[in-house]
């Protein structure tokens, strides 16, 4: 039987103390005591003793632990803020201690693959929708928790940490999750919108990373604002089509988590995905860029997955396809740009 912890007031859990995880934990700690999980013991000690992690300040009301069981027992609401690459591993570590009364909200803008032993993207000739999982789908598949939501929107960590005004979307099938998220996060400087199309909101956050890489590349090539406007608008059309094909609604892409986040990321030197594109255009090879980055640029993995999916589904997504060739098939960025300029986008908007 599940061990019900005592009725003393519950803490809010945060798993993953990367830059975004830390920013969210700090915001949560303004209203409630927070318990964060970190894998490494020295990180836990650092947070508990010096209230910092990787040079970032950590709110005084935040405690850290490296024990998943303790976190699950002491928290009814848990925010998972880990990169998609580590998602399965982390979720599986927590699954034995999660129960149906847990509310889970995640903030990961990436995709995972639901493969059997031995399958990889390289030895697969088809990638079907069932094999692609959004993070909420990973949670539903791997744990017994059902009340799941996601957090997405233009939320650059450095700005959040400075306390600048921003907004986010919490998406869930459950009103309860949205209301809890709003209660915990909303402040004078932070607005929280609700959306019931969780898949659409997750996909918006995921797909915008592709366009962000392209935007970085344009900037790296020294191109101007006209080109950026062109990219953002074409990028949005591509996001709408891809999101629809993967099960999201058009509305969510047009919202804060889609267009809102897209515009922010395409203008921000703080964005990791933007940086990848920027450095690529300056001529750095991909491997070198990835090696020197502290945190994962989700867009790279997303491009691989989406590229495999559109081939299987028989869709065209010119920006994604060309970025794939630049990243993995040694196409020159200038050539890719030429290709996009010649691509017959005859209709401006064909989805509303």
């Amino acid at each position: 039987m599940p061990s019900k912890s005592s009725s003393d007031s519950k803490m809010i859990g945060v798993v993953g103390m990367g830059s975004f995880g830390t920013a969210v934990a700090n915001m949560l700690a303004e209203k409630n005591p927070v318990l964060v999980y970190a894998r490494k013991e020295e990180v836990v000690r650092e947070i508990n003793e010096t209230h910092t992690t990787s040079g970032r300040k950590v709110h005084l009301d935040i405690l850290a632990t490296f024990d998943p069981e303790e976190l699950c027992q002491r928290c009814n609401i848990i925010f998972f803020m880990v990169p998609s690459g580590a998602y399965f591993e982390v979720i599986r570590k927590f699954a034995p201690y999660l129960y149906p009364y847990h509310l889970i909200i995640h903030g990961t803008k990436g995709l995972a693959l639901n493969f059997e032993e031995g399958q990889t993207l390289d030895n697969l000739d088809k990638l079907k929708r069932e094999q692609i999982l959004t993070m909420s789908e990973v949670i539903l598949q791997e744990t017994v928790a059902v009340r799941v939501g996601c957090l997405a929107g233009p939320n650059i960590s450095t700005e959040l940490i400075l306390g600048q005004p921003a907004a986010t979307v919490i998406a869930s099938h459950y009103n309860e999750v949205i209301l809890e998220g709003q209660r915990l996060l909303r402040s004078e400087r932070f607005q929280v919108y609700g959306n019931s199309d969780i898949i659409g909101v997750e996909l918006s956050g995921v797909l915008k990373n592709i366009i962000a890489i392209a935007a970085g590349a344009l900037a790296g090539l020294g191109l101007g604002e006209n080109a950026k406007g062109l990219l953002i608008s074409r990028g949005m059309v591509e996001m709408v089509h891809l999101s629809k094909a993967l099960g999201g609604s058009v509305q969510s892409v047009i919202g804060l988590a889609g267009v809102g986040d897209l515009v922010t990321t395409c203008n921000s030197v703080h964005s990791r995905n933007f940086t990848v594109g920027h450095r690529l255009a300056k001529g750095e090879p991909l491997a070198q860029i990835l090696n020197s980055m502290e945190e994962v640029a989700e867009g790279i993995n997303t491009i691989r997955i989406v590229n495999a999916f559109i081939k299987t589904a028989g869709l065209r997504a010119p920006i994604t396809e060309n970025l794939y060739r630049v990243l993995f098939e040694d196409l020159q960025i200038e050539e890719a740009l030429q290709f996009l300029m010649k691509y017959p986008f005859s209709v401006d908007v064909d989805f509303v």
Partner: protein
Amino acid sequence: MEENYIKHKYDPILPKQAEWPVVKLARERKEFVQRVAERAESRVLDLTGKNPEILKEELETTLYREKLRIKQNPWVVDPDDEYSFWNEVKHALLQINSESKKSKIAKLDAYKEVLHKITSRYSNEIASNFKASHYKFTRRVVTFGFSRLLNAARVKGFRSIFSNQYTLQDKIQITGQTDQIRDLATKGTIVMVPTHFSNLDSILIGWIISVLGMPPFIYGAGLNLFNISIFAYFMNALGAYKVDRRKKNLLYLETLKTYSKEAIQFGCHSLFFPGGTRSRSGMIESKLKLGLLSTALEAQRTNYQNGQSDVSGKIFIVPVTINYHFVLEAPSLISDYLSITGQERYYKENDEFSTSYKISKFLVKFFTKGSDISVSIGKAMDVLGNYVDQDGNSLDKRGRIINTQDYFISEGKVTVDHQREEEYTHMLGKRIVEEFHKINRVFSSHLVAFVAFEMIKAQNSKLDLFDLIRLPEEDIVIPYAEFKKSCQLVLGHIMELKERGKIGVAPHMYRPMDEIISHGLDNVGMYHAKRPLLTNKDGDIITQDMSLLYFYHNRLHGYALEKLF
């Protein structure tokens, strides 16, 4: 390895009739009906936000629709005082409207009174008239009568009518988790959810429940079945409450749901056909009607709210599939399906069982001619779709014991959240459909119909369904050798699915392919005037009725097997 069908005698789990939940419910019928009416009333009040204007609108809509129904679609079973009752409602509403000076509260009270009258009437209408003596008698009649008919048809000769060579259990085989359902029925409350293809399903299931030694389940039967007194007798005896599909107004639907919920909470094992009506297409139901299903969730949550957290307050969902070679109503079902696809709104609830003669003819045909039927009982689940163990504990995907109550908990307390429960009902619906596909048993007839139709479709890949069905039957010939090859291919995939626990297979499917094919051809829709499949004099496969072939083919829809063609 051929597995054996379960055929043995089960002792009753509750030997004393007085302990049967339905008997207890019948004893308290009056109070129960009263309670349902009151609770339905407060549900409607909640839904209308206790706003007199909105309530008025609902009452007026109900009145309007009821008057229309009385005029346009009257049935024998309708009570005589209907017209006068609704006239009274009309006058009462007019009266309240004319008193413009009344305060808001006084108005609400006046409307409440009208509402109460209506829900009381509906509650009374819905309530079952179960009588234990009738039940016993009916059971005996059904078993005796049917086995006479069966033996008469199968054992040749003059004395055959008294032969006991075949019993009903030879004809109707019960497979699956029979012990689990019996066991859980003594611990908590069962909600059985079967697939629905034929009007006889409810009688069939009723009989199976009694063979398994369980007390009768209550279930909602279409009111049209009560049009005929003999059927009404059977239905009442089996614990049926009445569902009138003509009434789609809020007040009626809420009363109906309340009735179901209260009965489950009372501890009555229940039976829902979650597809709503019979599957018109012959496909396993994939979209369930969630209205009644939601009552199981609500009942479970209410039990938890009342502190009944042990197994006695637990509700178990048991999916059941009924597998036929032959569905007598197939021709009318499939023609309904084809004509209503896309225009369901204009479809009028029809009633092909309109006379006693038609039913008797049906029954005789069914039991003398119809070929074997198997009923698979699925694994029991909690209301969230988690499997349960022998003690009724819910298990998660890894086999860890979890507490169903946790799903209803917010901040440490069981809470009421309709939106959340709506999502849960969706999840449960999906799980039931998944289970249906897993416990569905493939018969030879399903295989041959599926393969034949898919081959014809592949040969005419440019045609859509409607053109395909209008193909001239005399032009269609499938060479036997090719047919056999395709059957082999599809069966191979079915066996693979079976290995992974995604489908069930009847024992006769382990015979050599030629035998399976001939068994299938002999049995598929065997007593229709036009046969869906036959062989011609060269031994090749032909059809006499494409729509029927489509109907039987649909049984294997939903396994992605069509991709093999």
